[in-house]
């Protein structure tokens, strides 16, 4: 299974990068989201996969008696997801605002700050 997840991680990164290379603002953000998902999945995978044993101590017990999934990557990914939400929502609103002001989705029309030397 790890192999398949690795393949997905590869796909997410490849897809994210590909989208980042398009000319559309919209696609750029999709690309960033895909990359973010890829990174999250990567961290999750590197904590090792454990099936069906969430890191929750059962009622009545004080410690784990069974195997359990590594909680650390889960907490990290959770944090990263929430942070990612903040950043992505800002980015999404940014493109809306850009559109409101500049009326385009084409990144190539948005290089005036670089143009004049």
């Amino acid at each position, binding site marked *: 299974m790890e192999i*398949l997840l690795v393949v997905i991680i590869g796909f997410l990164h490849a897809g994210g990068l590909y989208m980042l290379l398009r000319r559309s603002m919209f696609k750029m953000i999709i690309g960033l989201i895909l990359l973010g998902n890829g990174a999250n999945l990567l961290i999750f995978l590197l904590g090792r996969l454990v099936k069906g044993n969430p*890191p*929750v101590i059962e009622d009545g017990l004080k410690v784990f008696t069974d195997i359990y*999934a590594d909680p650390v990557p889960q907490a990290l990914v959770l944090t990263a997801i929430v942070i990612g939400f903040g950043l992505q*929502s800002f980015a*999404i609103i940014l*493109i809306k605002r850009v559109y409101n002001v500049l009326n385009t*989705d084409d*990144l190539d029309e948005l*290089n005036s700050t670089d143009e004049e030397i």
Partner: protein
Amino acid sequence: MLVAVVLGFIFALLVPFFSRFTKRAISLVYPLIPLFLFLYFLGFLEKIKSEGQILFHYNWVPSLGIDLSFRLDGLSLLFALMITGIGTLVFAYTANYLKGHQYLDRFYGYLSMFMASMLGVVLSDNLMSMFIFWELTSISSYFLIGFNNDDPASRKSALTALSITGFGGLVMLSGIILLQVVGGSYSFTELLNSSEIIKNSNSYGWIIALMFVGAFTKSAQFPFHFWLPGAMKAPTPVSTYLHSATMVKAGIYLLARFTPLLGDTIWWNSTLVTVGAITMVYAAIHSVFRVDLKGILAYSTISALGILVFLIGIGTEKSLLAAGIFILAHALYKAALFLITGIIDHETGSRDVSKLAGLQKVMMPVAIAGFLAALSSAGLPFLLGFISKEVMYEATLQLGNWALILTALAVLTKILLLVAGFWAGIKPFTGNLPSEFNKAHMPSPLLWVPPLLLGFLSLGFGMFPFFIQESLIQPVFSSISGSDTTIELKLWHGFNLVLLLSVLTLVSGGLLYFFLKPSKALIEKTFKFEVISPQNIIENGSNLFGSFARFWTRFFQNGYLRNYVITILAFLTLLMAYRLFGEVNIYIDWEQISTVSYYEAIVVLMMIISIIFAISTNSRTTAIVALGVVGFANCLFFIFYSAPDLAMTQFSIDTLTVLLFMLVLVKLPKNKSFSSKGMKFRDAFLSLTFGVLIAILTLEVFEEPSSSEVSKYFADNAYLLAKGRNVVNVILVDYRGFDTMIETVVLVIAAAGVFSLMKLDLNPSKKDL
């Protein structure tokens, strides 16, 4: 001693604050400062004569070995006296020359800052502090050249001068540091002890090369000389003070100072002789092709500097002595000539030597000063210039095989310089006064006394060399050459080859002066050679550099976001690939890999198809829904692999993101397809390479065994110590609660940002202050 150096700086700092109410009255007080310093240094004459050198030490940056140690010996004393002495005269001269000028206070500020820096350069025993003062002279020079800042040409010249001397300074800095690395100290006194080690080290060539660049740029040696004529845009006192008498001699000072330390090697000598010779001849020729008095003087100054480098390069006792005398002689007569030029300019409004004549009628004292200076420059007997010229010829004649050619060059230079000197010092004061200069009249004594004084000094020292022989020239000679030979300055050496050469110089010079008339036509002839002039070559070079800069900047900073991303990720990909395939042994350990359930395979397949779908669809909404499916499938993995918290959070947040997208999309313009097939192919290739690399790396990292110490600790203590059962939540609010606390701030800021993005709308058409 520190006070002596710092005084000028303090004064410079105070000037702008006091100027307002003392503008007129104070202008005569200014010269008192250099005068005071002059007298102070004069007081050291005896001591130096008897003790050779005096050291002063003040701590500054001990951990770098940089301190404010000052070393007063013959050479530095000579310079200190020149700086303060000529400084006094220039300060006084300025009081009248720029009388009533709006920014006179600033001018004095710069001048005193310069004076202090220059004193610092010649007095420092520590190379680094010497360099610091060195750079300060460049900066003060920049401000002084650009003093008439309304004039674009002034600004350009200031920039050119600063660029060249600044560049040289930076190169020299490397040289000084290298010297420290090899010699182990910045202290000149200490370095003298390891002179042999330095000369024998591998870095010796580098050291002197780097030092030379510094010295040559500062002292306007070929091919860096051209900033100096440009610097003549500065007011005449500046030209006098900085660009003939003192600052440009800093390079000479440096070479002289380093002679005992680094000199007397084939590289040292031959480089200096070559560069000096080229400079002196090249500039001397140029000087007779000018009509602007300042231009003539500028080139003759360059030539004189060339002579000095040449003499130091020869490196024999005789030549070093010659250099020592010539430093003083040149300072005296050239400063006088500049001051005179200033007076002429001031009174007639012209510096065109082809037109100027007959001014002796209105300003006799100036004429006398001019005559004396010109004669000293020409090296006529009874003037200091004569002695220096004699010693110089003696030096060149001692050189065996090279004697003939070097002497010939020296004589040629001297002949041309004689003409230049006469044009500047004599021509304006002979013949009939043209009607256009009728308004010229006798200037204020503040203007004419300084050059006259200098002229008489040339005469006095020339007639009675014993005045300065023991007290000044002997210590100078000792400190340059490092030898304890006793020198003797004589007016009369008897009939010998040297005298013959002197006569030859004077006669041919005199003839040339009579037959060659300064005219614009002469300059135009030189224009043909402009193409190959160093200035032109360097300017073309810098234009080329500019084009390169434009190319480079446009190439990288091209405005296209995707190109930026490509560059960055191509770099990363190459870096990773290089290390991965070079250093990592790639294998798959199937033992560690778990089996695949068919339903997982379905989810994987769904996810991959959705990714491809999201990428390839041209409808934005479809892409977003596909993104939703990707997130959804992702959540399923989280559920299968025991991360319910994660699944819940990810799913809520994915949905909120999709929702935001939806709301944004309501008003986005129609989607267009922009990229060509080739571009898509290129991008796909790069993306896939990147994805594959990340995947391989992930797998390799996965297979490395790692410690589970931390997560085990978390799990073991979650209930016992942290009183929670859901370990993920315990991590979030307790073990790593700090992360969460900050993370909430991220959300808050993002929300505030979104709010302001949507609500704050400053008028985009108006400029914003």
